[in-house]
C-alpha cells in the first residue's frame, strides 16, 4: 500500500467511521528537527550586539585617553544623572512599539514637580503626601494622553504635542501665579533629608562610604533595574507584550483578532505618566529643587535612546534590552564628552550624528519596516 492509498483510507475511516476504529493520524515521514544555526539564533539580536560592541569599544577607548573617567567611583557618581532618562525610556519603548510616541514626558515631570512643590511648600503637606501627589499628577497626565489616543483616536504625535505645551504651561502658570499670589518663590526647595537621600545616596553601599560596593545604586536605580526586568519579561514573554507588537505591526488586524487595543494603549500612556511622576521625584530629590522648567528637552533624549536601541519608529519592533543599551550609550557619551572635553554643546552634535548613523545603518541593512 503506497502512501497515497493509505492516506485516502485513513481519511475515509475518519469520515465514515469505518470499522469503528478511532481515527489514526496519517504517519508522515518523521520531521527532521533542524536546530537553528548560530547565525539564526544571534541574527535577531544583531542590533543589540552592535550596540554592545560599540559601547565596549567606546569605553575601552575612553579608559585609554581618560583613565580617571573609567573608575568605579566616577562611574557611580555619574550614574546619578541617568535615572530620569532611564525610567522614562522604558514606557517609551512600549509606546513606540505600538507605533505611538509621547512628547509630553518631560513636561509631565515639570508639572508633577510643581504640584509636589506647591503641596509641600505652600500648603505645608507632609512630604510623603506631596510626593504621592506628584505621582498621581503624573499618572493622571499620562492617562489623559491615553484617553485622547485610545478613545478619541487622535494621532499620538498631536495629542502629546498638545500636552507637551499644556503641561509645561500649566506648571509655569501655576508656579508663577501662586508665587505672585503668596508673595513667594516659584522654585521650591528645602525638602526633608529622607527625601533628598532618595536621589543623592546610594543604597547597599556597604560600611565604607568613600569606597561603596560596586553595585551601590540610588533608589531610582534599583527601581529602574526591577522595572526593566519586569517590563522586559512582559514584553518578550507575556500576552500583553504580544498585544503591543500586534498593535504596532497592524492595528486593524490586532483589533479584529479580539485584542483589547484601546485598553493596552490607555495602559501604556498611563504607565508613561507614572514613570514621569517617579522621575520627577528622583530629579527633585537629586537637586533638592522642584521647578517648572525641570528636565527641559529630556523627551528628545528619551526618544533618541529608544530609537538608538533598535525600536522601529513605525512600531512592531523593539526590545527592552536594546533600550537599556541605548540609554547606556547615550549616558556614557554624554558624560564622557562633558567630563573629558568640558563641553556640553558638543554632546548634542555627537548624539545627533550617532542617531542618524545608527538608523541609517539599520535602514541600509534592510532592517527597515516594510510598511510606509
Amino acid at each position: 500500500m503506497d502512501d497515497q492509498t493509505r492516506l485516502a483510507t485513513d481519511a475515509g475511516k475518519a469520515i465514515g467511521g469505518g470499522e469503528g476504529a478511532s481515527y489514526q493520524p496519517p504517519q508522515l515521514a518523521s520531521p527532521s528537527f533542524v536546530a537553528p544555526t548560530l547565525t539564526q539564533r544571534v541574527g535577531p539580536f544583531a542590533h543589540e550586539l552592535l550596540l554592545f560592541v560599540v559601547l565596549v569599544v567606546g569605553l575601552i577607548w575612553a579608559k585609554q585617553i581618560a583613565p580617571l573617567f573609567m573608575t568605579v567611583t566616577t562611574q557611580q557618581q555619574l550614574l546619578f544623572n541617568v535615572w530620569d532618562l532611564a525610567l522614562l525610556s522604558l514606557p517609551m519603548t512600549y509606546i513606540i512599539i505600538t507605533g505611538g510616541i509621547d512628547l509630553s514626558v518631560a513636561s509631565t515631570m515639570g508639572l508633577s514637580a510643581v504640584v509636589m512643590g506647591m503641596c509641600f511648600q505652600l500648603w505645608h503637606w507632609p512630604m510623603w503626601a506631596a510626593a504621592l501627589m506628584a505621582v498621581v499628577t503624573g499618572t493622571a497626565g499620562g492617562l489623559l494622553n491615553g484617553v485622547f489616543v485610545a478613545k478619541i483616536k487622535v494621532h499620538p504625535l498631536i495629542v502629546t504635542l498638545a500636552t507637551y505645551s499644556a503641561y509645561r504651561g500649566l506648571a509655569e502658570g501655576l508656579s508663577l501665579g501662586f508665587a505672585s499670589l503668596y508673595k513667594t518663590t516659584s522654585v521650591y526647595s528645602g525638602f526633608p533629608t529622607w527625601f533628598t537621600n532618595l536621589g543623592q545616596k546610594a543604597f547597599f553601599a556597604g560600611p565604607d562610604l568613600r569606597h561603596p560596593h560596586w553595585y551601590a545604586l540610588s533608589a531610582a536605580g534599583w527601581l529602574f533595574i526591577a522595572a526593566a526586568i519586569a517590563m522586559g519579561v512582559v514584553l518578550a514573554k507575556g500576552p500583553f507584550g504580544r498585544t503591543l507588537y500586534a498593535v504596532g505591526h497592524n492595528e486593524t488586524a490586532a483589533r479584529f483578532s479580539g485584542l483589547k487595543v484601546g485598553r493596552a494603549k490607555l495602559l501604556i500612556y498611563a504607565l508613561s505618566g507614572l514613570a514621569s511622576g517617579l522621575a520627577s521625584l528622583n530629579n527633585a530629590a537629586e537637586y533638592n529643587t522642584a521647578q517648572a522648567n525641570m528636565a527641559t528637552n529630556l523627551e528628545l533624549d528619551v526618544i533618541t535612546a529608544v530609537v538608538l536601541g533598535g525600536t522601529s519608529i513605525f512600531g512592531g519592533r523593539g526590545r527592552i534590552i536594546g533600550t537599556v543599551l541605548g540609554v547606556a550609550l547615550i549616558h556614557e557619551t554624554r558624560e564622557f564628552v562633558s567630563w573629558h572635553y568640558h563641553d556640553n554643546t558638543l554632546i548634542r552634535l555627537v548624539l545627533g550624528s550617532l542617531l542618524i548613523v545608527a538608523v541609517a545603518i539599520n535602514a541600509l541593512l534592510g532592517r527597515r519596516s516594510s510598511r510606509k
Partner: protein
Amino acid sequence: MTTVDYQPLRPPLTFRDMLWSLAAKREYGLAVLIALIVIVVSFRSPSFLALSNISDLLVYCTQPAIVSCGVMLVIVTGEIDISVGSMLGLLTAVMGTLVSSKTALVPGFGWPVWAAILVTLGLGTAIGIINGLLVTLVRIPSIIVTLAMFMILASITVKIMHRGNITDLPQGLRWFGIGTILGIRASIWIMAAVLIGTWAMIRYTPLGRRIYAVGSNAHAATLSGVSVMRIKLFTFALTGFLVGVATIVTTLGAYDNGIGQGFELLVVTCVVVGGVSISGGVGTVAGVFLGVVLLMIQKPVLIFLNLGPGWSNWDKAIQGLLILAAVLVDHFAGRRKKPGAGGGH
C-alpha cells in the same frame, strides 16, 4: 439622450448640523474665535486695536507664518520637519557673524548684506536638501532625521555663538525687519508674498497638486507618474529656504544663542491648529495663517488683558489646550480624512 439627475443622498440639514459643519470648516472656526478674542480684548483695553499695535502683531506673526508654509507642505506629503527651530537659530548665527564688522566687540567677517543674505538662503536650502535626501534616499523616517538635525544644528549654533551676542548689525540688514514700504513694515510685505506665493503654487501649478496627491495616496501618485521622492525632497528644500527667509526678516537688533528654541513645536502647533492633517493630504494656507495668528496673539492678549502680575504666563498652557480643543471639535464634528479627498486651494 436623457440626462440623469443625481440626487445627493443626504438627510436634510438641521441648524445644529450646520453649526457643527461650520465649526468643522477650520478656517471659519478660527476666524470666529480670533474675532471673539479681539472683541473681548479691545473692550478691556481699546488700544489693542490701534493701527500700530495691529502692525506689531502681524510683524510678530511673520517668522512662524513664513516657516509654517513650508512645514505645512512637508506635513501634507505625510512627513514632518522638527528641525526648523534650530535651523533658524543656526542661520541667524551665521548671518550675524557674516555681516558684523571686523572691529566689533565680537568680530565678524564684515561681508556686504546682499552676500550674507545669499549665503543664508543657500545654507537653509542646503540643510533642507540634506534632510530631504536622508528621508528619501536613505529612507530614515523624517521624524528621526529632523530630530537628529535639530540636535546637530543647535549644537553648532552654540559653537558659533560662544564668543558672545552679536549686536553690531548693519542698517541694511535691519531694514528687512523694521523698514517700511508704503507705510507698512517690509517683513509684513515679505510674509504676504510668501503666503500668496504658496497659495498660488498649490492652487495653480501641477507641482502643488502633486504635493497633495503624494500626501493623499503615495501609491496612487506613483502609479500616475509622480515621483514621490522628488516631491518630498522639494518640500524639505522649500522649508529650508523659507527658514532662510524667516531669518532675514527678524526684527531683533541683537542675536543670542537662544533664538529658535521651541520654534519647531510652535510651528507644528500652528499648522495642526490650522487644520492640516498629520497623516497627510489635507491643509490650506488660509487655515495655517489663521492658526499662526491665533497662537501668536495669545501672549499679547494676555498682556493686554492686564490680569495682574504672575497671571500672564499661561500662553503655553493655552497653546496646548487649543490643539486639544481643535482635536475635540474634529472628533465631534465628524471631520475625517477621506482617502483621496485632497484639501487645498
